[in-house]
């Protein structure tokens, strides 16, 4: 199970480091962009609350944040040694009150609870422990099949170079990533073969991504207008980031 932890001084300067730490967790969980933002805001609110209240009037100590991914949940645990502070004791703001009656307090805790599935607080000798849990839809990235294509995609070489890809397509593959770094040449025969793969994938509402195009290959895509038809990324990583960002697609 992936997990990590971070210990920072309990001060506002640490918020940007915490933000990066949360981003790395949501990326590993392959959360959709919206879920990732919700977790980021909730953890930011939790940390801000500890920094501003648990350590109000006393010398700031440290804040330890850890996360783990288990059974479709991303779990954040924040531990501090400040004043005991149970978020459940903070009155829920009345979000329907008129402007005149509206108060600015309690919003952070309110949002934290709304954005996460569960928020629990415990206090013992080891300090204050706040646990935030978020269930997330597991991305379909596990279904992504990656192929390294090699050689010249011309009238002679295309068929053998694309054989594994075509077998996967025949077997019902829906998500393909073709790494083209080792492709030194692309002719119209190669393009035609790739178009056929694309057509099959499109019919089953799948994903076909091309990455690592050599300049001379990239030029063929641009020249023929195929660059607009195919989904092309610089690196596999870029492609995966783009795929994850689509979140609950598929």
């Amino acid at each position, binding site marked *: 199970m992936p997990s990590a932890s971070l210990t920072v001084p309990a001060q*506002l*300067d640490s*918020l*940007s480091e915490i*933000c990066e730490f949360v981003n790395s967790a949501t990326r590993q969980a392959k959360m959709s962009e919206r879920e990732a*933002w919700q977790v980021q*805001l909730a953890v*930011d*609110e939790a940390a*801000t609350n500890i*920094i*501003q209240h648990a350590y109000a009037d006393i010398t700031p100590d440290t804040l330890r944040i850890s996360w783990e991914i288990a059974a479709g949940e991303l779990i954040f645990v924040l531990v501090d040694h400040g004043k005991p502070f149970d978020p459940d004791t903070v009155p829920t*703001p009345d*979000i*329907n*009150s008129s*402007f005149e009656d*509206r*108060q*600015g*307090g309690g*919003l*952070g805790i*309110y*949002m934290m609870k*709304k*954005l996460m599935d569960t928020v629990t607080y415990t206090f013992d000798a080891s300090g204050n422990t706040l646990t935030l849990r978020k269930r997330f839809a597991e991305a379909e990235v596990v279904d992504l099949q990656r192929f390294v294509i090699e050689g010249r995609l011309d009238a002679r070489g295309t068929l053998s170079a694309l054989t594994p890809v075509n077998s996967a397509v025949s077997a019902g593959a829906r998500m393909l990533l073709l790494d083209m770094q080792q492709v030194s040449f692309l002719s119209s025969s190669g393009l035609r073969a790739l178009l056929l793969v694309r057509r099959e994938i499109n019919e089953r509402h799948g994903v076909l991504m091309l990455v690592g195009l050599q300049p001379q290959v990239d030029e063929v895509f641009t020249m023929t207008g195929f660059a607009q038809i195919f989904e092309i990324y610089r690196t596999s990583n870029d492609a995966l980031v783009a795929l994850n960002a689509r979140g609950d697609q598929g």
Partner: protein
Amino acid sequence: MEMEITHTRMNRADLLTLKGRLDAMHAPALKQKIEEIFGEGRYRIVLDMSELEYVASPGLRVLIEARKKARDWKITDLEGGDIRLAGLSSRIREVFDLTGFTSLFDIYTNATEAVGSF
């Protein structure tokens, strides 16, 4: 990860363009800027949020407290100070919806409309 505030003074109102993150770290800078403007006897402020990427509760608190102060300044019963908002991205709008802030503020599509509303 920072927040930038650009201040443009107009006849009708003061326009503050916010860029970046309005979190606990950066909310005090906005509060200070707004109080500076209030200090000059100017209580009509537009916050252009189209380039704001992120808002957390300390930022929301600054908005509500500033609007309360602005509205205390009145020319007549109908006319006076206000804080009006413009150009909320979908994420910022989501925070506003979640916290009930959407109905607390006058929100305009863009800064031009918001400034023109005064």
